[in-house]
């Protein structure tokens, strides 16, 4: 890993987009990711998570500022209008 400050980019979106988002972040240079199934409420209503079409995913990527910016810009442009999408970053201290 580089000496640059690292960030955890968390993306919460619809399960139906899982494969698409993974392809997108891979193409933008993310080396790895973690996905979990989650549920909750947001602008697009309650997502109970009790069946696949009604659940959300949380996609987490660790990378430098530039990578996070690229991913956020691309996903905002392509998916923010029509899909439930929430993205935020937090600084992380990588220990290995």
């Amino acid at each position, binding site marked *: 890993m580089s000496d640059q400050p690292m960030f955890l980019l968390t993306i919460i979106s619809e399960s*139906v987009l899982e494969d*698409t988002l993974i392809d997108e972040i891979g193409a933008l240079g993310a080396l790895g990711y973690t996905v979990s199934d989650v549920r909750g409420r947001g602008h697009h209503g*309650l997502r109970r998570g*009790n*069946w*696949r*079409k009604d659940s959300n995913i949380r996609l987490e990527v660790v990378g430098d500022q530039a990578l996070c910016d690229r991913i956020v810009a691309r996903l905002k442009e392509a998916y923010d209008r*029509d899909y439930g999408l929430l993205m935020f970053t937090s600084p992380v201290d990588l220990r290995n």
Partner: protein
Amino acid sequence: MSFEPVVLFFLLGVLAGLLRSDLKIPGSIYDALSIYLLLAIGLQGGVKLASYPLAAVLLDGLIIVAAACVIPLVAFPLLRSLGHLGRADSASIAAHYGSVSVVTFSVGVTFLGQELQDYEGYMVVFLVLLEMPALVIGILLARYGQGKVSWGRLLHEVFFGKSIYLLTGGLIIGYIAGPGGIEPLDKLFFDLFKGILALFLLEMGLVAAGRLADVRSYGAFLVAFGVVMPLIAALGGTLVGVMLGLSVGGTLLLSTLYASASYIAAPAAMRIAVPEANPALSIGASLGVTFPFNIFFGIPIYYWMARYAHGIGM
């Protein structure tokens, strides 16, 4: 006419949802139940298909698919003109109603079992064939050549999504194995079918309860559409069934397929291909209105239609 008790499990699920019971079926169990149902339906169809000439079945299938293409083409202008819905929403709902519901079909099959009414076992082939064409029509209606559609991803989602994949896989395995070969598996896949369907309907009830709460906001038009559209489609199914010389049971299943609205394959496909359409409208109408209507009232009505059309009387 006897009553099919498995549908009561759906009601049990709806009540649990409305009464805010803590009943919840974990997502992994839902997945397991749906995998079981898809494989079991495919296998049952495949075993029975083995005793029919494949070419004749596929020829019937072509006619059935061609006739089914009319459903979204009737639904779309109705939604546009009477419902005053936008193009994307109308096209998405039309696609849901043109496509089919595996669980509604399964309830139709158990209904025929209850009535001791035989049917052509290869009806499952039509279930597989009918899932996709309406989705393509819906996308074309939404786009009219404008805007780009990621067809590759969409076709992948439809053909390799678990419903078509497992139904077709089950059909092929059942066809190759035949009645003798499938015997070691029949305790699991045939005898337990109704019980597993009951559990699945319980879960469907829970999911539908979440949608029922929104039904008020859809407006009266969409609720009326969710009841009238399946009746129109079932009438078409009855006519095609009689024309093709299907039995009373086969005619009932065909009209049930025409009347059913997809709430698994279509929402995923439309979310990818027509993302600007509001999924709450289409899933709400198909799952909150049409699915319960079909399993409680529709199937007995379509049975009556099929008997009437075959001259058996009321």
